[in-house]
């Protein structure tokens, strides 16, 4: 029984937005950051990150530019646009609402029905 949970479809985008909201990152950095903030509980396929990033750039939620990483490697950095920030806020609210609703449904006791 592993301690890592499978990512629900659609939540990868949300996590990327969150990760980037804490500061501009390159792809590998985003991967590390997600691992960091989720307490290493989420399982993400390395390569699957990049199509998601391209998609978010196409939708105008992320902005990409080339720069240098810590150890002087050339890498593409991503940061949030204002639309991205707005979307992050909306999605987070929506996610929280969903979680609360499902949690309360799952916590229902026989005598409450």
């Amino acid at each position, binding site marked *: 029984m592993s301690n890592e949970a499978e990512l629900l479809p659609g939540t990868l985008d949300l996590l990327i937005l969150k990760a980037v909201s804490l500061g501009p990152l390159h*792809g*590998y950095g985003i991967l590390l950051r997600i691992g960091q903030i989720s307490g290493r509980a989420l399982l993400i396929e*390395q*390569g699957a990150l990049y*199509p998601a990033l391209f998609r978010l750039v196409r939708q105008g939620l992320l902005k990409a530019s080339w720069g240098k*990483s810590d150890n002087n*490697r050339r890498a593409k950095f991503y940061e949030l*646009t204002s639309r991205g920030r707005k979307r992050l806020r909306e999605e987070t609210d929506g996610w929280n609402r969903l979680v609360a609703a499902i949690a309360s449904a799952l916590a229902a006791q026989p005598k409450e029905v």
Partner: protein
Amino acid sequence: MTAYVRSLAARFVRRRQTERELEEELGSHIQLRADELERSGCTRAQAERHARIEFGSQERFKEECREALAGNFIDRMIQDVRFSFRSLRKSPAFFAVAVVTLVFGIGATVAAFAVVNAVLLRPFAFNDPARLLWIYAQRADGARTNFSLPDYCDYRDQQTSFEGLAAIGSYSANLSDWSEPERVQGVRVSTNIFSILGLRSLAGRSLVMTDDLNGAPGVAMISYGLWSRRYARNANVIGQSVQLNGEPRQIVGVLPQDFALPNLDTDVVVPLQPESDPRRSARNSVSFLRFVGRLKPNVTPEQAYAELDSIRQNLRRQFPDASAGKIDITIAPLTHEIVANVRVVLVTVFCAAIAVLLIGCTNLAGISLTRAAARQRELAMRTALGATRGQLIRLLLTESAIVALIGGALGVLMETWGQGILLRLVPSDLPRIQTFSIDWRVFAFASVVILIATFACGLAPAWLLSRADLREALLSGGRGSTSGTRRLRTWLVAGQIALALVLLANAGLLFRSFALLSSERPGFDAANVATVRLSLPETGYVDRAAVVNYYEALRSRLAAIPGIQTVGLVQLLPLAPKSQSTVPFTRPDQPLAKRDDTPWANYRVVSPGYFRAMGIPLLGGRDFVEEDDENRQPVAIISVFLANKYFPDRSPAGQRLTIDDTDTEPRSVEIVGVAGPVKQSSLEMPARADIYLPLRQVPKEAVPWLRYNTYWVLKTSTATTGIERSIRGEIRKVDPSVAVGNVRAMTEVLAAALAARRFSLLLVGSFAVAALFLAAAGLYAVISYGIQQRTREIGVRLALGATRGRILRMILREGVLLLAAGITGGLVLALMMAKLVANQMYGVSERDPFSFALVSLLLATISLLTCGIAARRALNVDPMEALRCE
């Protein structure tokens, strides 16, 4: 939004750069991971290897990244198009056949639609045409007749249903200006017609109320056609004064280009001037006017009819003699009337073109099915690699879309360039055809047709094959077709045969009608007869005496031309279009119970040489002679129809008839001869009652008509050339101010009477032949294909001892079943649609079993031949080859 466009640009415009960046980005990811691994103790090489394995297939993610860019759909479309082009290039035969079929199919259909559009669909230039009504009176025998001038004034003043009521009468004139005089055919109108129709002049001004008043200076408008033809569209001609029938008139304006009235030529338009017309108070005067009116906003046609009819009944009560014979009113929408004669013909031709297109498309669908069946393996592979059904359908449709677009574009182009030829083929008196143009409707129609062609050719194979069982396709090597394919193709061909039969049946019926009609005896002998139409100016020819003098002078000169045997004159030639002249008559000793039952006869003024020149036999009594003049008893010659119907009891010679051809009392004439039947107005109508009067005894009321309308009929000894020049020369020598029309051989007039039918037959016939050809081709393809598919089966049978004859019979049996289905379907369809072509038939029923049987036989024979030729291939199968090839 900009992010989307930037993404699009990244995919298409900066493709190489994007690739490089992608490569670099993934590479740097791996390097960064390798750095981390190196920090935890591996060697560089180990770390990099580890990182790469961890990452997985770079290519796969790169592909997913590319797909995440914008413009995925466009990219796929471009790929499909490129692939389709390649595959079409590889089968040039299919490409060529498909494009050619569509070019002609679409081109012909669009051309037919363009004509239908120009004549029937295009909005008329009138303001709010739905409220315009065309009004006739009706006789007891159902024929239409006109109103007289006093009638018009009464209707106009008493009606309340219309915003305005205008009167139109035909007007034939001798136009003379600074060049050669010309006969023109136009209309005399009350000037309120322009506001009623809501038309404005193209140049200059329209006629106005003041032009209609007593004593107003003479004015006229000319048509666009006349303006182009005679005055080269020179704007200076407006304001010039010309002579029409000797009266000076100023040209004040040019009519709009598509001005048209039912059954009337409108070269010139002059004011009616009702108040100053001498017939204003003559109740009994000639009825020559039709009305057009614009309904008031809240009035329905039924209400208008009721009111007009009540006015008519009032007039009858007041003037029973003058109103006799007008027993009813006919109203019809103006726009309908203008195109009434040609609507059915045009629609028939259009439907024929569509049928041919359909057959062509079905052929293509069949061929495409075969091609697609051969690609089953490729399609199966694509599905295995992840293509969805939608993508497969899109791929197959792209190919047929390319073919349809190329074929359609070429077809439309061909149509636009070939416009000149098209207009030359079409009968020139088709209403509204002068302003033929290709407008947006034609393009919209062409687009729809191309779309339909795409789907017709592409959808069947696309849908069928995307359902195919993959494994079977991959295993069997892709040569097989599903039974679904074959069955679909078979049904398609049966449909084609049915359609071809319908077209052939229609063409056959039209052909029989045409043949019967052209073999109809017109009642005269058209061989070696030249006709020329003359129009005498008003100055110098005010009365009968002057006209008769002219006649004598010209007759002797023309008779002196070598080659001319007989010279005659008639005021209206048989089969002359758009004109009629009739007169009511009675037998004085058999008065009628009801005035409304007064019979009418065709009224013809002739010279003594007319019957001889035209070869019309005299079946009793005598011909007119020059001595039948004003000093002698008025005489007449009647047609045999009149003689048989109204003098059944005795010989008509010596009997009297009362005819009403003056503005005053009817007069009595003595019958001196009986002429054979002549088809006066059209070949399709049977010969009716005619009353001929001699030129020298024509009443003064008929002199104006006679002046503007005389046809000289010249019988020549052989078909002489160059006689036209002599004729014109003599006419000019007698009086150069006389306007001379075309010198036409009577055979030409006869042919022109059949022109519209001939045109329709030509078109529908060509389409039918094309359909037959295409259906046979389709049948051949299906049979051949079936044989090819069953090569192995045939080989086995042959090896097991079947004779070639049995194989042939087996294949033929299928073909015959197909044929039978097609012909039966076609017959049913043709019988159902027979009513639509009923009114184009002449002498043959629209359900004529003989014609149907004949075309069915023709179709069956050709189809069986085709089957036979296709099946012969089966005989050449070598059993060993067949069994071996897989």
